[in-house]
């Protein structure tokens, strides 16, 4: 009886196992499709759909789905296509995504060039694409002032929109303060922020983004400000001047903070034009990444081209290896041929094991002739450092796949052989964003915070950047001057001259910045930036050309 039962089970298994196997395979293959079906993605670009060309614009990507019990690790892939270039889709930027059933909202700054881009957004699980969509920014281009408002009536909004008519309209976008940008690059196209104080509802990233934007020349109008610490921007303006009837203007770096009671606002375009001090868009100057480090870069910058930096070390390695090999081949060439064979085998295996760390170490000693250009703009009032780095494999360069790393959480690859570049963010917090890229180039732009570096943020940051010995320069619109810092800490100003010294490479940038902001003199130099470590391969990081505005009255 038992035997028959066992045989029966065996028979059933034999009969049905191909079907079970088939169903299992189908489930395995289908699981990815099921997952793809569960993911919902929606993305928007710019403020209320309008994007400013030649500037950084925010992109909001909302992803919904995943399991509540098992968070899924996905990647968000962005590919920016320039429709006027022959080879699109040559640079990919990836962001990590974690889905756990709830809505995941990601805010990413995107640089839109003057002619507009098509942005391709892909959500991927491993190599499988779960969702894909595209946004064509060319249909939503608005080359003018964008002003973000919250808590204003429609008539006020319309008044702001008409403030520069008949020459140009102003776009006002109503925003929820909780949706304000968390990355300061997203404020690149924002000319002013008009908000009613709703209390301390903003997170620290939002506050820092506003700080950077203000320091670079942004205008914040805060209606009905609350006293600290309940105020919306108490961290920025600890004690706002509160008065029921008056308007108070405070400078913040190159920007301005205006606090006023709601009652003084009028739905008159002239009132808003005067309050915001709005000039025509093309005459408006601010220190932003898009305006200063846009697609047209300013002149030549200091480059490091350590072409044969590791030549000596490499020669020593090769000679040691060859001599060891020859010594084994010759000196063990006795009648004991097996011993020689064994020695050669050990030599080869040992060399093969050792070559990987040695090769990586040697490759990290130089740039392979690839220049890395970095310019940084140190904003006043602790606004942070706007930096832009360009790595370009020039034509005829023997350099191959280049690995690039910014700090520990961002890395990239300029893969010449496979003809694409990539920039990958390993964490959801990031500093450097891919501005433009191709199969041979990466342009990384970002903002570094300088807070907690020193008690006095701006001067503290400047003190960190200024080299212990070497040269820094100053330009006030008429004269170029240089300060030579000795090894012993002593410093001496050189005689002011009409023309710039040879060591200053970015003259065009300095002159342009002075033309934009003639009320300031500009201090500049080459040194390492704290928190900024753009490394080629796994070792070298380059020096940075930095520049910062200082009031004419300030003596260094």
């Amino acid at each position, binding site marked *: 009886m038992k035997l028959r039962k066992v045989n029966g089970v065996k028979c059933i298994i034999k009969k049905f196992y191909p079907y079970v196997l088939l169903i299992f395979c189908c489930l395995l293959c289908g699981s990815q499709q099921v997952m793809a079906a569960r993911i919902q993605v929606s993305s928007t670009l710019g403020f209320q759909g309008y994007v400013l060309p030649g500037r950084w614009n925010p992109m909001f990507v909302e992803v919904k789905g995943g399991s509540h019990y098992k968070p899924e690790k996905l990647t968000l892939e962005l590919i920016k296509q320039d429709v006027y270039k022959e080879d699109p889709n040559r640079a990919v930027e990836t962001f990590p995504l974690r889905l756990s059933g709830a809505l995941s909202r990601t805010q990413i700054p995107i640089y839109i060039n003057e002619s507009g881009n098509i942005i391709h957004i892909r959500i991927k699980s491993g190599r499988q694409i779960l969702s894909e969509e595209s946004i064509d920014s060319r249909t939503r281009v608005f080359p003018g002032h964008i002003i973000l408002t919250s808590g204003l009536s429609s008539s006020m909004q319309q008044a702001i929109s008409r403030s520069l008519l008949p020459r140009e309209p102003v776009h006002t976008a109503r925003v929820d303060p909780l949706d304000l940008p968390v990355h300061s690059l997203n404020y690149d196209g924002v000319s002013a922020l008009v908000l009613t104080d709703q209390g301390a509802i903003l997170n620290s990233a939002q506050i820092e983004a506003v700080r950077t934007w203000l320091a670079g020349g942004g205008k914040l109008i805060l209606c009905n400000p609350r006293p600290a610490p309940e105020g919306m921007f108490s961290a920025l303006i600890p004690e706002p001047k509160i008065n029921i009837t008056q308007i108070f203007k405070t400078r913040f770096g190159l920007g301005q903070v205006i606090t006023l009671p709601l009652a003084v606002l009028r739905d008159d375009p002239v009132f808003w034009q005067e309050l915001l001090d709005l000039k025509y868009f093309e005459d408006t100057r601010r220190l932003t990444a898009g305006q200063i480090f846009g697609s047209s870069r300013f002149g030549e910058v200091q480059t490091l081209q350590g072409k*044969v930096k*590791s*030549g000596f070390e*490499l*020669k020593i*390695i*090769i*000679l040691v*290896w*060859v001599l060891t*090999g*020859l010594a084994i*081949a*010759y000196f063990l*060439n006795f009648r004991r*041929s097996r011993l020689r*064979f064994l020695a*050669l085998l050990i030599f*080869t295996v040992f*060399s*093969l094991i*050792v*070559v*990987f760390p*040695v*090769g*990586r170490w*040697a*490759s990290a000693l130089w740039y*392979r002739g690839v220049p890395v250009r970095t310019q940084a703009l140190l904003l006043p009032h602790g606004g942070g450092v706007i930096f832009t780095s360009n790595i370009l*494999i020039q*034509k*005829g*360069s*023997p*350099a*191959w*796949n*280049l690995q690039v790393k910014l700090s520990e959480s961002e890395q990239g690859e300029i893969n*010449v*052989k*496979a*003809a694409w570049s990539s920039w990958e963010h390993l964490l959801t917090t990031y500093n450097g964003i891919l501005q433009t890229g191709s199969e041979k180039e990466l342009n990384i732009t970002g903002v570094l915070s300088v807070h907690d570096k020193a008690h006095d943020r701006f001067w503290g940051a400047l003190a960190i950047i200024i080299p212990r010995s070497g040269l820094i320069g100053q330009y006030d619109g008429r004269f170029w001057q240089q300060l030579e810092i000795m090894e012993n800490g002593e410093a001496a100003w050189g005689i002011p001259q009409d023309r710039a010294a040879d060591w200053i490479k970015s003259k065009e940038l300095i002159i342009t910045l002075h033309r934009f902001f003639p009320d300031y003199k500009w201090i500049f130099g080459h040194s390492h930036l704290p928190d900024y470590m753009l490394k080629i391969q796994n070792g070298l990081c380059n020096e940075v050309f930095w520049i910062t505005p200082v009031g004419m009255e300030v003596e260094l």
Partner: protein
Amino acid sequence: MILVFWSDLKDWYRRFSTRSFTYFLGALGIIGAFTNLQPQAVFGVLMVLGFWLGLACGKETFSSSRLQPLIFSTKLKPVSVVAGKVVFVLLLGIIHILLVLPLLLLTVLYWGVSFCVLIQILVLVEVITALVSAFALMAANVLTSTGDGFLGEFMLGGYLLLTAVFQELKRINPFYSVLQVLNPELQVDLGYAILLNFLLLLGSLIAIWVPYRTGTEGGMRYDQNT
């Protein structure tokens, strides 16, 4: 087949291994040190060394047991002898590449050349070594009666010249294709060069084997010489 290549391998190891190792280590080491392991220079020299190795094997410099005596004085089949000789060349190529592989890996790591390109070049070097050896073997055993002379070198020179002059054949020229694949701006791969050179190798091997199989030319000459 195993007997043939094992015998050749033992002969090489006892008498010529030191010299061939010295050539490989010395040439690659000197060029590597002088050029900071410039990939074009290192892999170009590797290709030249592959030519030398193939020519030496084809002329049976390393072997005491030669092709014709093996075929006519033993019971070994011609196909086994030819296959044994080719396996010996391939094995010898692998041994030499293994010896200098650390230096090649250092080149790849130092310059960032992809491993895919490295593998392609090594396969091409192997195929070219075997092809050169087959050319020399054919020249020495089938096309001439004396068993030596410069016919092998002439054939080799002709092959290099033809593949260097004619645009259509350039893609199979080993030096040209290696330089092309090592240029990061050109998106080329060596698949075509490897395949066509491999087909040439097969053709050469068949050309060596067929006369002995039919018992005509090669056999006649050997009888006359002995």
